[in-house]
Each structure stands twice: as structure tokens, then as C-alpha cells.
């Protein structure tokens, strides 16, 4: 298994994409402090930008980043109308197969946490988990340093 830690290129790519997304979120021209709803909406957009930027920085190299990008794209396109009916039925078939062979509950929990984890075999799941975890840690580190920069 090759190193899971994101190299500096991926980290830089993520940081740039994320910062550009942030700079696009301009404060509305309305006077006065932003409403709670506006703040909520912006928080959601920031969170989405963070996950998307990381997935794009990783690219199509990993199954989890592919799955995450697909989910983001479908969320934008279908807004819950179609909800990936094909994938949902494939998921059910795979989950049934896994349960039959006696997989542990903790593995199922992990499948829910890792993007695309539901349809992976155990080896793939463990590999993707390692990479996903390392990328998440990097994402947190970069976001924290941006917050620190802003607070200066």
C-alpha cells in the first residue's frame, strides 16, 4: 500500500481551491448583521466547499474521492428528486451479500462513514479508509491555519 498521507501537491491544491471558493462567498450588500439563516447557509456552503475541494485535489485516484464528487454533483443536479435509485438498489444487494458472510457491525459503521464504502470489499474499504482519514486530517489542518490567518 503506497503512502496515504497527502503529498504537498495535494495539500496545496486543496488549499488553493478552498481559498478561491471562500473568496467567492461575498458578504451580501444588505445592511446590518447577517441573519441566522444566512450564516447557516454560508456555513453549509463552506463545509461543502471544503469537502469538494479536498476530493477534487485528490482527483479520481481514490474510490472515496470519486464517490464524494459523484454525490456532490448529484446533489446539485437532482436535489433529491431521483436520489440515485440505481445505486440504492445496488447498495441493498451488496449489503445483503456482506451480511450473509458475517461481517462485523463495526465494519458496517465504517462503510457508512467512508464515501463509497457501502459497495467496497473489506480490503478496499480498509485502504480507502486510511487514505480518507489522512486527507480529512490534512483538511482540518489547512482549515485551522486559514482560521488562524483570518484571526490575525
Amino acid at each position, binding site marked *: 500500500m503506497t503512502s*496515504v498521507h497527502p503529498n504537498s501537491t495535494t495539500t496545496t491544491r486543496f488549499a488553493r481551491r478552498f481559498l478561491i471558493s471562500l473568496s467567492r*462567498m461575498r458578504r451580501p450588500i444588505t445592511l446590518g448583521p447577517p441573519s441566522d439563516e444566512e450564516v447557516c447557509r454560508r456555513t453549509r456552503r463552506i*463545509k461543502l466547499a471544503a469537502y469538494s475541494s479536498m476530493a477534487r485535489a485528490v482527483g479520481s485516484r481514490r474510490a472515496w474521492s470519486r464517490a464524494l464528487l459523484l454525490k456532490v454533483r448529484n446533489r446539485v443536479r437532482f436535489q433529491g428528486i431521483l436520489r440515485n435509485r440505481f445505486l440504492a438498489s445496488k447498495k441493498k444487494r451488496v449489503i445483503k451479500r456482506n451480511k450473509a458472510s*458475517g461481517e462485523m457491525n463495526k465494519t458496517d459503521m465504517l462503510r457508512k*462513514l467512508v464515501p463509497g464504502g457501502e459497495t467496497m470489499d473489506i*480490503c478496499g474499504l480498509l485502504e480507502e479508509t486510511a487514505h480518507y*482519514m489522512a486527507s480529512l486530517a490534512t483538511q482540518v489542518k489547512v*482549515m485551522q491555519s486559514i482560521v488562524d490567518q*483570518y*484571526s490575525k
Partner: protein
Amino acid sequence: MSSRRSRSRPSSGVSRISEDQIIDLVSKLQQLIPEIRNRRSDKVSASKVLQETCNYIRSLRREVDDLSDRLSELLASTDSNSAQAAIIRSLLME
């Protein structure tokens, strides 16, 4: 648990997943989780590793939530000039 795993299910086209492969991957995961790495104990069960992995991923996600909240507040409170300055500073830091 391990003996069941080595008899892989007869799925078409998928190669046998060996117990060694899984043990190897689990131990690699072990190295990545701060909780377990810092405790310096070699004998950690796979079940514990999976549990800690789930906990760690959840805590990382929570951190992303918190940081998104803070960024949202910071974006709202700072004017556009200092926001751009902060962003440029961050870019130069890389």
C-alpha cells in the same frame, strides 16, 4: 472472526481476500490513528482499531463542522479587504 474471514465468499471474479492482507491493512490503519499510536501498545485488536477509526473519523468531521462555523462567522465579520488580504497571506504561506 479471523477464521471466518479466510474462507472468502464465492463472489464471481473477485480474488480470494487473504487473512494476512486484512491483518496488514488493519495494522496500517492502526498507525494512522493518534489514539492508538500514542498509547504505544502493540497488541490492539482489530475490533478496537475499527472502533477507534470510526471515532476518529467522526471527530475529524466534527472539527470540519466547527471550523466551517468559525470561517462563516469570520467571513461575515471582516470586510472584503481584510478578507482578501488574509486569503492572499494564506496562499503565500504555502
